[in-house]
């Protein structure tokens, strides 16, 4: 363990970013966790004050600060609405890294992050093993949502209704791909991401189907690693650096102008988190990281622009009613909210009905859901109500992490509403139109 003085010195590097907060407290109006708890330490202003206190050596035991810092979805609602423009997400991630450096990773996190996530091959094998045996411990609970729950009391699963691991992960179905563009003349790289690979391979398939249909060439390198968000959220810089370098090398191996993902969190991690958190690395890797960040796009953003799709003037007639949930990492981090809607509205026989508070966080937040399930669930229930009140039988979104949360919330309420990715809706409509895809 480093000395507390080293810690405060490292915290001082955040000073210029910390002083930007003027304690106006406007973040209280948008923080989903604060809405549930009403505790100042749960909202960005409180956390920033705590980091300020740490910097000024007001604390001898930073554990309490670390704990409070981790009680955050990293949804970025505060940052998107901050009057002074505080870079809250960057500060929180950096502070988590500094504090983790000081206190060390917990044994459990170390095992998961450094033992598995850091090594894509081991991680893949472990999850495949899990997919094979998961039926022993779990049973299906909602056929519309495809969710399961624990057969017997399980501390890990708790009362969750979860979408189980896919029988065959995407990288087994299509390990790699190199296709040349047809009439479109465009070639893109495709980054799959862990959740699409292991839980929602059907979304990755739908994305590739759409690209093939529009004669867009695809470069899908084998052996892709996690984008690093679970590592950086846990303050594990070492694993994060390793994962970023691994992915950078893969995606630099062939020249493409665009890298696509169908995961909002992966997209925002590559575009926003990689350049900021890798900042101190060697100039060579930084150039590559920045170039990849620049090229990376959300799939709906790309399709809508590449094909020049525009929202139809009237899409009220479609029989299939779909409502759309904005993932925080797409709308609040990257400002993308129109394109996935356009994609849905451009799908045959589909009408988009807006739910209330479509851009309110679903409460997932990755490891937050594991650590604070009850808070995560009460936030998720608000989302579930808005989905149900829309009257639609399908809710679409653009992030597989949100898909997990929405499935859990709807399934636990016994709702028969399907959860889909926006690209799935578009892909299905191409199929139902009789297009060969």
């Amino acid at each position, binding site marked *: 363990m480093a000395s507390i003085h080293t810690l405060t010195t490292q915290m001082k590097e955040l000073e210029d970013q910390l002083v930007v907060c003027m*304690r106006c407290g*406007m973040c209280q109006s948008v923080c989903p966790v604060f809405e549930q708890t009403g505790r100042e*330490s749960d909202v960005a202003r409180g956390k920033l004050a*705590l980091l300020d206190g740490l910097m000024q050596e*007001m604390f001898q035991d930073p554990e309490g600060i670390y704990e409070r810092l981790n009680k955050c979805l990293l949804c970025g609602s505060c940052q998107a609405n901050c009057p002074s423009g505080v870079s809250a997400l960057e500060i929180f991630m950096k502070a988590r890294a500094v504090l983790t450096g000081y206190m060390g990773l917990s044994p459990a996190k170390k095992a998961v992050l450094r033992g598995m996530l850091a090594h894509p091959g081991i991680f893949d094998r472990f999850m495949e093993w899990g997919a094979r045996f998961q039926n022993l411990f779990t049973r299906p609970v909602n056929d519309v949502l495809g969710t399961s729950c624990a057969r017997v009391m399980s501390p890990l699963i708790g009362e969750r209704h979860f979408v189980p691991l896919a029988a065959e992960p995407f990288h087994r179905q299509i390990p790699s791909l190199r296709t040349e563009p047809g009439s479109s003349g465009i070639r893109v790289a495709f980054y799959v991401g862990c959740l699409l690979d292991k839980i929602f391979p059907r979304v990755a398939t739908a994305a590739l189907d759409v690209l093939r249909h529009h004669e867009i060439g695809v470069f899908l390198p084998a052996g892709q690693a996690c984008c690093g968000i679970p590592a950086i959220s846990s303050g594990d810089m070492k694993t994060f650096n390793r994962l970023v370098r691994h992915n950078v090398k893969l995606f630099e191996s062939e020249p493409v102008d665009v890298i696509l993902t169908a995961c909002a969190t992966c997209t925002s991690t590559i575009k926003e988190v990689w350049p900021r958190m890798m900042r101190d690395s060697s100039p060579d890797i930084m150039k590559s990281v920045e170039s990849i960040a620049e090229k990376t796009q959300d799939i709906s953003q790309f399709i809508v622009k590449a094909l020049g799709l525009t929202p139809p003037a009237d899409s009220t007639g479609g029989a299939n009613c779909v409502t759309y949930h904005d993932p925080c990492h797409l709308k609040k981090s990257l400002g993308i909210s129109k394109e996935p809607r356009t994609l849905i509205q451009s799908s045959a026989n589909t009408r988009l009905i807006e739910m209330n508070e479509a851009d309110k966080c679903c409460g997932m937040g990755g490891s937050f859901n594991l650590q604070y399930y009850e808070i995560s669930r009460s936030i998720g229930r608000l989302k579930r109500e808005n989905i149900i009140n829309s009257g639609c039988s399908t809710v679409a979104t653009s992030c597989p992490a949100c898909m997990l949360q929405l499935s859990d919330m709807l399934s636990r309420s016994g709702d028969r509403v399907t959860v889909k990715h926006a690209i799935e809706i578009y892909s299905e409509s191409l199929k139902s139109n009789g297009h060969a895809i």
Partner: protein
Amino acid sequence: MIDHTLIEMFQKTVGVENVFTDKADRLTYSYDAAVLDPVIPALAVRPTNGEALGQVISLCYKHGLPLTVRGAGTNLSGGTIPDATGVVVVTNGLNKILEINEPDMYAVVQPGVVTARLAAAAEARGLFYPPDPGSQAVSTIGGNVAENAGGLRGLKYGVTRDYVMGIEFFDAAGDIVKTGSKTVKCATGYNLTGLLVGSEGTLGVFNEITVKLIPLPVRQKAMVAVFDQLDKASETVAAIIADRIIPATLEIMDNVTIRAVEAYTHVGLPVDAAALLLIEVDGHPAQTEEDAEKVEALCRKMGAASIRVARNAGERDGVWAARRSALSALAKLKPTLVLEDATVPRSKIPAMVKALEDISRAHDILIGTFGHAGDGNLHPTILTDRRDKAEWHRVESAIEAIFDKALALGGTLSGEHGTGIAKAGFLEKETSAATIRYSRQIKRALDSKSILNPGKIIGD
């Protein structure tokens, strides 16, 4: 001293999860939005019902613990900065709208109800709660009443004080006191409501507040007038009022603010303009049209370079989005922002605007001025970096100069932010030694142990 037994008693009263003893939690209740040093309280508690709130106060009274009530902690004068030996009582768990009465047009709320939520609930029933302080998205009604908060609509619709019909509050010992009524008229007892509004938690702790609602205006019309001289803009403000027109909102933005807002929002504001007036008239459609025409004509007569009238709801929203982003836009220029709210009689706006320009120059500091010109309540906003000691010193003397000028013009130190700690030392300048003495006598009589937010308004 707060010992373990006492902590257990608080826990029994409000629940273990609502008593904060860890230093980390207490630190998050050590500040508000004022640029002042934080003070970490000995304890923070968060009662979730009125009964528990009363018991918390009784406990504090019995043990002589200072208590500072905190809503959203957004106040700008240090009113929620606690005593180091005391207890912060967080009211955001008391957040129920107890009643919205349509026939009698009033609402009864718990103190922790967020202002914007009450306004929205009233509007959903065709009723209007006009006070709209800048922090309304998070501020609480309890805090608004304690600070007598204002907002953009003060000119025509008044401030929080004008909407408080009655209060049920706890005295220092934790006993319930009732004042006011749900009737339009009420002539019984002392006007304790008047005493409690703006008392900043020094005379009692609110349990339930009854506020007046009014019919929602049918029509609004907004416009922006561009001026190439600041004087012309401020003289136009005085001229509109002098012509017996009362716009719902009459706001000014100086060049520093215009540039900051444009850089931030890119809505197409004229960055070369010396000042903008943003004006909205509302009411009956015919009256609204007539007022709008009169205001437009007056602006032209007073030398406006151009006037743009919002033709639809979208354009109107654009006007107010630009105004609402003023503080945010200025905040992005420098790390520290000091938002002042010295207020002058409306006719003195031109003199005050001029004085602010002089003060900015004389003290070599950056001041962006915007605000509620129509009601004389300007927001000279000082942009600085508190870590720069020399500049901070100039900022402090500039603030004093602003206070002196406002008072010299017959104004007040604060239009809507309250006295708190920030202005307590200057209050005698505005009033008199006898006023402070008189106020302290009231405080002593009602709070003999001096536990209710000590040190605020009238000092110690």
